């Protein structure tokens, strides 16, 4: 038997753990990125994307698992309900605490962010900004005044020394840059403290617009990392240069202390404003991150729940499935032992159990095979036995019948197996003596018994030698029996025939031989003394010798007839028409002067048989003569000879019936009418019917003598008929299958 272990693909834990770790890393990065840190800020979009992808993958996995579970639950697959319960339990265990944490985290988050902002701080920062501006405004006003003075000085300067005057003014006033622009905004002259900066800072169009409106410009310029500068723009009219309009731009550095403080205020203020502005988006992005973390955790937990539930339920499902298989008789299932825990122990025990069961079943099967073998062997032996064997159980039920028994009794026991033996009497009444003998011996509770039983059935008279033995079955009060019987009819017949043959030979030898000398002696006596004797004495001698001679003659005849009967037949079989022979023989009797009417009722079809024409003629002569003698002196005497073809037990026969309306057989002789020297006639050798029977047996037929109800005797002879097969050859069924009066026999 092929052992089929159940293999179940249980997904490994490692990929799952790996994925979770990756997820955690990604989430922590994302949380960092949410803080707007420089390191992860750039990655934020990617992280969001990765986590979204993870979300989709996990969601798909969960949905796939859910679909799988629903499918199994619908199919009522083993373990589906358990898996569902476990999944539900795990999911509830995961969802409830995570949801609680989520809720409170959200609360803390909202309040935490809100707590960053304070009206007082905001006010303080605003004030700081205003203060800074006010402080710087003072400086700006100074710068404007200073620049105005410079512009006045410059207006007197000749155009050719402008550049030098600018340098002089710059150094004197501590400006970092001075530049003069013409009305088109082009640089006329400039001077800068920074020698590398050759191009002066350009005023913006807005500043120029202010100037064009006739106002002065003063403002603060944050310049890169170097801090704040005050920029002043004042129109200059160069009186010595056709009163042309120019613009003087002066850049003064704000003192470092101021600059640093202002920068601090600026940075803090900007940061605070930025934060305040970002409050809502920040809350949103934190909430988003937290929600993604929550959803990912939940999905991961649900997936883990599915995974764990499947892992947990798998051996149980396997067990359920395998138990179902065992219940249906399949012991070949072996389960994989996945763990060392109690479940593993259970699986191991189950495997041991199925192994033992399988072994036990195999042994039982082997035992059964052995018993079957023995039974078959017994049947073969019984079938080969030439004796009939019938075994009966305690209630006379037929248990077993061998082939010989079926053949001998002429019963196919198919319908009677298991039924009580007397049931066969319904259709086979002639077996009554046989059944009676068995019942009788059973009642007497003998261990073994033996009895000769005669039955008269389809096979004619059968003598069965029955031997019975009680079958004691352990632990049962009543016992069955086995009956072994032999059909010894043929044996008895053969014995009888042999005995008669011996008698005939003895008679011929012992009696016939002395008869001739007796006859000769009597004739010599007669010849010698008859003439010489007195008339009275000679008459006596004459009578005596005549008697001797006559009786010796009669004895000779008798002995000849007898030896004729005992003589071994020398027959030659050939296909013949029995009807033709009957007609031929009966023609001889047509002219009989007796007052006996011979009625011939022959079958219309030729009665084809295989036989010896001479022997059959003798048979007919004997029968007709017998009939004629039987009806001698009867009024309206008649002898009927009839043939008909008939079928019985699948065999074709020619039945020849010779009947008369005489007195019939007396009850005493009917049983032995075919034995030699059994005769109802005052005269007769007593061998007529014995010879008839001998001839019938030589032809493989059966003969039955019976009395007609209307009075008279009937001799019924059945001979197997020839019938033509397809090739035109005449085929004779093997004799003895159903027709022989006995077959085999021990």
């Amino acid at each position, binding site marked *: 038997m092929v052992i089929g272990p159940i293999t179940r693909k249980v997904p490994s834990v490692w990929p799952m753990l790996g994925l979770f770790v990756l997820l955690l890393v990604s989430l922590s990065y994302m949380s960092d*990125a*949410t803080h*707007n840190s420089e390191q992860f*800020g*750039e990655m*934020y*979009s*990617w992280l*969001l*994307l990765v986590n*979204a992808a993870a979300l989709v993958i996990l969601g798909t996995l969960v949905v796939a698992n859910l679909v799988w579970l629903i499918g199994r639950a619908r199919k009522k697959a083993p373990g589906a309900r358990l898996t569902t319960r476990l999944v539900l339990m795990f999911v509830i265990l995961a969802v409830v605490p995570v949801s609680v944490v989520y809720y409170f985290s959200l609360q803390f988050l909202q309040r935490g962010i809100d707590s960053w902002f304070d009206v007082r701080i905001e006010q303080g920062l605003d004030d700081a*900004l205003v203060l*800074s*501006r006010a402080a*710087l405004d003072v400086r700006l006003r100074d710068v404007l005044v200073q620049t105005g003075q410079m512009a006045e000085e410059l207006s007197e300067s000749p155009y050719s020394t402008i550049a030098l005057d600018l340098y002089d003014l710059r150094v004197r006033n501590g400006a970092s840059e001075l530049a003069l622009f013409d009305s088109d905004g082009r640089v006329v002259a400039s001077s800068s403290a920074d020698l590398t900066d050759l191009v002066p800072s*350009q005023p*913006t*169009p*807005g*500043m120029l617009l202010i100037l064009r409106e006739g106002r002065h410009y003063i*403002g*603060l*310029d*944050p*310049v*890169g990392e170097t801090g*704040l500068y005050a920029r002043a723009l004042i129109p200059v009219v160069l009186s010595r240069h056709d009163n042309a309009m120019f613009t003087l731009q002066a850049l003064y550095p704000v003192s470092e202390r101021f600059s640093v403080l*202002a920068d601090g*205020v*600026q940075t803090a*203020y*900007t*940061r605070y*404003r*930025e934060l*305040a*502005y*970002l409050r*809502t*988006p*920040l809350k*949103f*992005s934190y909430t*988003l991150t937290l*929600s993604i973390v929550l959803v990912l955790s939940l999905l991961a937990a649900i997936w883990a729940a599915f995974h764990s539930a499947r892992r947990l339920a798998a051996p149980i499902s396997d067990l359920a499935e395998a138990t179902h298989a065992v219940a249906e008789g399949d012991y070949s299932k072996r389960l994989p032992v996945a763990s060392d825990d109690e479940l593993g122990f259970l699986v191991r025990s189950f495997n041991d159990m199925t192994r033992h069961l399988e072994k036990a079943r195999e042994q039982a099967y082997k035992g059964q095979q052995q018993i079957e073998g023995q039974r078959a062997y017994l049947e073969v032996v019984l079938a080969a036995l030439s004796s009939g064997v019938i075994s009966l159980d305690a209630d006379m039920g037929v248990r077993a019948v061998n082939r010989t028994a079926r053949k001998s009794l002429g019963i196919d026991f198919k319908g009677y197996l298991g039924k009580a033996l007397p049931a066969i009497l319904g259709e086979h009444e002639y077996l009554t003596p046989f059944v009676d003998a068995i019942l009788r011996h059973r009642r007497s509770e003998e261990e073994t018994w033996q009895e000769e039983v005669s039955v008269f059935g389809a096979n004619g008279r059968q003598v069965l030698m029955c031997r019975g033995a009680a079958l004691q079955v352990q632990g049962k009060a009543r016992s069955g029996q086995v009956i072994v019987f032999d059909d010894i009819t043929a044996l008895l017949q053969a014995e009888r025939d042999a005995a008669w043959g011996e008698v005939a030979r003895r008679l011929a030898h012992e009696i016939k031989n002395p008869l001739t000398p007796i006859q000769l002696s009597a004739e010599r006596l007669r010849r010698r003394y008859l003439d010489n004797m007195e008339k009275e004495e000679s008459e006596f001698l004459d009578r005596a010798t005549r008697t001797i001679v006559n009786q010796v003659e009669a004895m000779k005849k008798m002995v000849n007839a007898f030896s004729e009967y005992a003589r071994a037949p020398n027959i030659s079989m050939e296909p013949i028409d029995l009807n033709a022979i009957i007609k031929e023989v009966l023609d001889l009797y047509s002219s009989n002067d007796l007052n006996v009417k011979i009625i011939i009722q022959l079958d219309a079809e030729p009665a084809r048989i295989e036989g010896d024409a001479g022997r059959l003629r003798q048979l007919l002569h004997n029968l007709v003569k017998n009939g004629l003698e039987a009806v001698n002196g009867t009024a309206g005497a008649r002898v009927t000879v009839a043939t008909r073809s008939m079928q019985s037990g699948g065999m074709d026969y020619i039945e020849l019936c010779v009947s008369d309306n005489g007195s019939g057989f007396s009850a005493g002789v009917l049983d032995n009418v075919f034995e030699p020297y059994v005769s109802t006639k005052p005269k007769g050798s007593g061998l007529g019917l014995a010879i008839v029977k001998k001839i019938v047996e030589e032809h493989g037929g059966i003969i039955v003598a019976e009395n007609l109800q209307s009075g008279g005797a009937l001799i019924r002879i059945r001979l197997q008929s020839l019938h033509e097969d397809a090739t035109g050859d005449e085929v004779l069924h093997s004799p003895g299958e159903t027709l022989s009066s006995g077959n085999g026999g021990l």
Partner: protein
Amino acid sequence: MFAQEKIAAYPAIPAMAVQPHRLLVLLLVSCVLLCSPTLYAAETGAIEASNAQVIEADPGPGFLLDGQFSITLSPAAKEALENGIPLVFESQVQLVRAHRWLWDAVKVELKLTRQIQYHAISRSYVVKDINADTQRNFRRLADAMDAVGMLEDLLLTDGQPLEDGADYKVRLRGSLDIESLPTPVRLIAYVSSAWDMNSEWHVWSLDR
């Protein structure tokens, strides 16, 4: 005035292909934001190339481009700017050789990145040219935005003279760089039309 960053690339790399994840993130965040319409619905801003001209450089080879993007900030962007959030704008200029049957080949590509930020103490807007690392200050926002969108004397050349008989095109476009926004704002900017400030390609053929 502004330094030029010159990138010679062949074949063209579409600007959108540089950040493919944007679309996906956009999808995701839009899903999340469906329930927050206040963040979503807003007045839109715009960037348009208002005028541009190309003249042959002297000495050659190459062309000089002058142009101006007119940038209208959406209220949301303006609010962010006034609250100290720096905004970064990118201008992209390409000299393209046009093919009739093939993809156009980008011969020269320039990218100009400018940042604008409000300076509270000086009450001015500081416009920084990231490429050249220079800055200017403006009292008025309009002036500042003009400075951000100004293209002046951009030299378009890969050092090779143009092929005779070939068709050349110049195209430019500008956009607000969402990726440089602070992370919390970025999430909203992905989905909000108020932050969607991208001009179409402004294309014209080169007449020689």
